[in-house]
């Protein structure tokens, strides 16, 4: 049964924080649908464990704490269960990525050899154009590669700890990151640094 005091409090929190939480989650997951689901899950979890909220922290801090756990959990799931998306990107990407960059000896193909980037602006992340390029490049990564990238930075945990939580070997994890980085680097080069 919904206790009416709790209901009033929860409603006021939804009014006050759900928009910010939604935007935050869209920003992290690159997906509006996922963001809606995670924000709903967060309020449900908050509602079910409201007795644990003792007013020691701000409601906003408490809710974002739950939300961030949900986001990390989402990426762990995405990493473990890569969904084949509309273009079969993840399968396709695995096979052709290394061939695209390296010859049969594993050395850079001539036209792919990285050269220094000369474009070097300060505070790139304040530049909306660059943010759009970065977002575009991130969204082209297969789901589980994107999840690996997020997990690497999101929690500031050690590589070993991330792998423990994912129940995978560290080798597997940095190999995925290696592929993701090769693709991301190329995409940023083509769409930004070589412009």
């Amino acid at each position, binding site marked *: 049964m919904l206790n009416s005091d709790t209901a009033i409090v929860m409603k006021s929190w939804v009014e006050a924080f759900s*928009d910010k939480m*939604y935007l935050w989650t869209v920003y992290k997951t690159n997906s509006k649908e996922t963001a809606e689901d995670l924000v709903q899950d967060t309020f449900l979890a908050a509602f079910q464990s409201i007795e644990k909220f003792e007013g020691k922290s701000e409601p906003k801090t408490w809710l974002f704490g739950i939300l961030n756990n949900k986001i990390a959990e989402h990426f762990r799931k995405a990493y473990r269960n890569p969904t084949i998306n509309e273009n079969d990107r993840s399968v396709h990407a695995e096979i052709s990525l290394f061939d695209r960059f390296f010859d049969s000896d*594993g*050395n*850079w193909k001539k036209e792919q*050899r990285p050269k220094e980037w000369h474009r070097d602006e300060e505070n790139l992340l304040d530049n909306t154009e660059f943010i759009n390029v970065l977002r575009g490049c991130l969204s082209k990564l297969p789901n589980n590669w994107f999840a690996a990238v997020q997990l*690497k930075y999101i929690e500031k945990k050690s590589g070993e700890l991330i792998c423990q939580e994912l129940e995978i070997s*560290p080798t597997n994890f940095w190999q995925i990151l290696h592929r993701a980085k090769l693709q991301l680097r190329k995409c940023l080069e083509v769409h930004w640094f070589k412009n």
Partner: protein
Amino acid sequence: MKKIMYLIMLSCKKVTELIEKRSLVELSFKEKIQLHLHTTMCDACTAYQKQSEKIDELLEKYIHTSDTNNSASYQNHELKEKIINNLS
């Protein structure tokens, strides 16, 4: 000497993998030497390493900043209704 170099020298593919590995775990002594030797001789991997570190720096900042300030007036009424309906 050529044979020794061959044993120590890694391919660019392997070296770029070590560069990513290094940002997660500490490399073994042998791997450190291999990475160092290769990058002193290979401009492409040196450029890759620099760019990889720059991307790390950008992503780290990107993931920890929120651009919600730009959209302070954003309202998702539909979502609010859904949440409230879920709870009751």
